């Protein structure tokens, strides 16, 4: 193990799935995709939630002297 000090690197680049180093498990891929929808939505909301909240504040909040229109960034 670590006491063996020589390792051989085999060039990375196996097409995923076809010759994966590890058996990912069909069931594991399936559940990942299924629940990924929920986690992905949560992630997107969290990342852009800040901007959505700021956008709302600028549009519906108290008018400030230097009121700038909220920017609608492409997401």
């Amino acid at each position: 193990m670590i006491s063996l000090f020589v390792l051989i690197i085999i060039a990375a680049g196996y097409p995923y799935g076809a010759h994966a180093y590890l058996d990912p498990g069909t069931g594991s891929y399936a559940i990942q995709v299924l629940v990924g929808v929920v986690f992905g939505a949560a992630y997107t909301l969290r990342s852009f939630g800040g901007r959505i909240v700021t956008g709302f504040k600028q549009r519906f909040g108290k008018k400030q002297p230097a009121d700038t229109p909220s920017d609608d960034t492409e997401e």
Partner: protein
Amino acid sequence: MTSGLYTELSSSGLLVSHEETAETPAVKEIAYKVIKPEQLPFISYPYEWSFSQLKDAALLTLDIQKRALAHNLSLKDASAYNIQFVGSQPILIDTLSFERYEAGSPWVAYRQFCQHFLAPLALMSLVDLRLNGLLREYIDGIPLDLASRLLPAKTRLNLGLLTHIHLHAGSQKNLADKQIAPTRYHLSQEALLGTLDNLQATLRGLQFPEQVTEWGEYPDNTNYSRAAHDAKTDFIRGWLEDIKPNRVCDVGANAGEFTRLGVESGAFSVASDIDPVAVERNYRKARAEKDRHLLPLVIDITNPSPGLGWASAERASFLERAKADVVFCLALIHHLGISNNLPFEQIADLFAAMTPYLVIEFVPKRDSNAQKLLASRKDIFPNYTAEGFEAGFSHRFSIVHKESISDSQRTLYLLKRKD
């Protein structure tokens, strides 16, 4: 290497550094390079780790996976054996685990991560601390259907545990004999990152259980007076100054009080103990001090980790790994000689195989803690005396120092192995 990930990880101490060598590869035709990784002081395995050690290893794996994705790379496996501890600091040792991230592909190592990290931690936190022993039985992590069955029903109310353990197990069962081409599965990068975030949050939510163990509170309940404790400390400190060990192994170390004398003397020190609460306490203290020279482990010296895996040699046994320059056997001999019925000669043989120097404390029957061991059993130990102890050890060790510990019934010895 060119992605910058290696530099980022190794300079933060998260991945072992390596150097390229000019060694001849074993199989030239497929070899790209031969690398030599930095050598680590001690190899330990997940079934020897306390709760927080396993949890920190899990969180490190997720952290590294997120950083890899930022460089368009991904971990191709998430085995707990890819993490080692340098003292209290976890580090990834599998330099070769990175592959190019193909946008849209699910994480190939997700199953392994759930089995190696999430399942055992959930079981330790929510059922019983001792369930980490299942990792010795299942060397590729705990099967999710087993974890699902053992976890309490209320865990289905936790989104992370529901999805990554319960539904995951169900999905594995339903699709067990179906083969669908992996290219049919699409997972966006946001979904993958969201999943990693949820795994992190779920893990962080798993707390160390309020479990009462036999030796968890021992440091607060010893039968040593301040004077006795200080006398013992002074003797050991002085002997270590003479020997100057590189490596110390403390057997029955509890929370590592005396193991730290080994660290103080400049040695890399392993603090092994049977009690998972004691080891947890020790680890948290070492981690808070970022101690890279103290490694706490959960080990029962009367039944230490055996060789496991293929040919019983994939994972070396604890005794093969635990050779040291000095071994401590403090406040332990009565458990071995009385509770475990071991003759002194056999105890001596075990330690002689480990070390040339043994710091050992003889606890006589009249000691109050030894009395507790005899309280409910017949005293069948006529040979368990100081004379018996010295005679029993004399065929493997000679006595260098022998000191009575003031204010105590106990005697401290420094023994040297006869070669």
